[in-house]
């Protein structure tokens, strides 16, 4: 009796999710097409810009960023890392992965920062948002690959969307946290001098939450990087694809080379974005 009920409920959830996905497919196709076109256009533009630049220019620009934000030693490391990637003949997949990470991060921030601001300001939004974020962070990534593929087919678009779902939570959480941690007397000062709500947000709260928000950007990028192999399973391409090839062909050389490229890219992105949260040269602000 109880087991029947349990089975009915359990089966019910499965049935209902299937119905929901089908309903979206039946009635939401135009909307899905618009989303797909926007995401594809955005991701494609970033990819095109990165791949269009000559390797020395792109590598040089990132090395310059490393020099400016971190220091000489790390700039040398960055230059060597890109030289190694180029020498391993992994330049194109690496740059394409960088494009995927940048596009996913940008979209995560575009959705995540406003959501975080909203959560910091409203108790109801905070409750709903936390539930949603817990769901996004605990649901195994493979599970939402299925609807992503059903909605958007194979390729870059479902890859970016799945990555966004996986990588967005830290951006939201750290934005909300950063705003809540702004010293209350600064908020009082803003209001005492006649700030309206949007002035308080842009002149007082966001500037003071910036270190926390940048920590969120850093974590979002790292999580996006950790999704690249999964995303390549649905055709997102890039380094993830090379890693998969290495696994499929049991090609240890290819596996190690592509794995190393991922690690080098991760270290470079991590150190440079971290510096925006803590100030130049790692000094605390």
């Amino acid at each position, binding site marked *: 009796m109880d087991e029947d009920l349990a089975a009915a409920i359990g089966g019910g959830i499965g049935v209902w999710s299937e119905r929901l996905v089908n309903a979206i497919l039946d009635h939401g196709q135009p909307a899905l097409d618009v989303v797909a076109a926007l995401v594809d256009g955005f991701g494609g533009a970033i990819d095109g810009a990165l791949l269009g630049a000559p390797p020395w220019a792109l590598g040089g620009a990132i090395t310059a960023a490393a020099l400016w934000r971190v220091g000489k030693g790390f700039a040398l490391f960055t230059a060597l890392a890109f030289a190694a990637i180029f020498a391993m003949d992994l330049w194109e997949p690496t740059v394409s992965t960088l494009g995927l990470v940048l596009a996913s991060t940008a979209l995560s921030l575009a959705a995540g920062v406003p959501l975080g601001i909203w959560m910091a300001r409203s108790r109801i939004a905070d409750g709903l948002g936390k539930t949603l974020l817990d769901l996004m962070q605990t649901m195994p990534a493979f599970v939402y690959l299925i609807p992503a593929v059903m909605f958007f087919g194979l390729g870059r678009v479902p890859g970016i969307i799945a990555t966004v779902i996986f990588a967005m939570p830290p951006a939201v959480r750290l934005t909300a946290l950063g705003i809540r941690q702004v*010293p209350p*007397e*600064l908020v*009082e*000062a*803003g*209001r*005492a*001098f*006649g*700030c*309206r709500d949007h*002035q308080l947000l842009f*002149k*007082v709260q966001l*500037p*003071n939450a*910036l270190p926390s928000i940048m920590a969120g950007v850093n974590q979002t990028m790292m999580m996006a990087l950790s999704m690249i192999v999964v995303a390549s399973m649905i055709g997102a391409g890039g380094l993830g694809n090379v890693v998969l090839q290495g696994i499929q062909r049991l090609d240890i050389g290819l596996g190690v080379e592509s794995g190393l490229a991922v690690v080098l890219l991760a270290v470079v992105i991590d150190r440079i974005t971290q510096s925006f949260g803590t100030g130049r040269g790692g000094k605390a*602000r």
Partner: protein
Amino acid sequence: MTLILPSETASSSTGPAEVRLEVRRLCKIFADDPRPALSLLEAGAGKAEVLRRLNVNVGVVDASFDIRAGEIFVIMGLSGSGKSTMVRLLNRLIEPSRGEIRLDGRDLTRLPKRELVEVLRRDMSMVFQSFALLPNRTALENAAFGLEVAGVGKAARRAAALRALEQVGLGAYAGRYPRELSGGMQQRVGLARALAKNPTIMLMDEAFSALDPLIRAEMQNELLRLQREQARTIVFISHDAEEAMRIADRIAVMEDGRIVQIGTPAEILREPADEYVRAFFRGVDSSRVLRARDLARCDAATVLLDEADDRRPALRRLSELGAGYGYVRDRAGRFRGVLSRDGADLLDGVEPAAGDAPVHALLRRVATAPCPLPVVDGQGVFLGVVSRAALLETLDRGSLGDG
């Protein structure tokens, strides 16, 4: 011969200045529904009882007072007595639970948010105990904040901010960030931010409490100097009795959310309303706070004589009254000299004391004068006399040993 024997005290009665802020029956209860707490308070319960019975914090209870244009109104009391809450009610950083706050006759508590913001931008500034400077902005950008928020153009607001920084002696530090400045300098920036928009009202919540004693005294002088240049209406919160005595025109003393006494420093020192107030000011050296005019008495024992009258009948009246001395004034009430019962001429060497002289500067003169020391105002008008007995009594009351 006319003998005038006024029994009234000649105290520091300045003319009634225009009232800027009228506060009436203002209450703040920290609860979603303040009504149970309010009715409990109405029935005579105190803050502690409300907290015990309803688990509700009481901030301010039934505060009523007027703040006049151009005065420094100090609100003081122990920590937790509701001072910060009170000052935040005035600009509605905290929403009142009940009561009225009228600024130039207009009730701020009923003002919609949009209009309140206009009032805050135009009329009111605030200075905070913790400085509350924006760390990502330079001193100049911090000082310009109020004007920036109000939509003043960049060039105009930078000019005003620089002027304000120069007013507080920080013109050379315009480009520095708060973390590069000492505490005293940071609070000067806080002061400049408050001054830059040229407000008519400044709210200062323990503005100098976080500073070292030396810097604090310096800032108090700075404030008094600024106030002499342009008298603003200042509400100054303090828990430091010395500070309150130094800068206040009038003082309101708070205890457990209620105002227990309002008066000039001299009035409060002379007649503390209760043991709490007395204890508060016990350590204060009253001879430095009180001025000659605060002590000057003109009572039944002080015989006043008219310069135009004959000496002989005047002397007779003195002996009839059993008084040793008479104080001679001209038609305009100006002091002319002291007449002794034993002599027909005015006494030599009795120079009147200026009304503004601090009492501690009078000790020797009161001790050595043959008669109670006459006190005059800036125009030479006779205000009263300071006797040795009155002086000793005052010094005794201000000292630590009194109970």
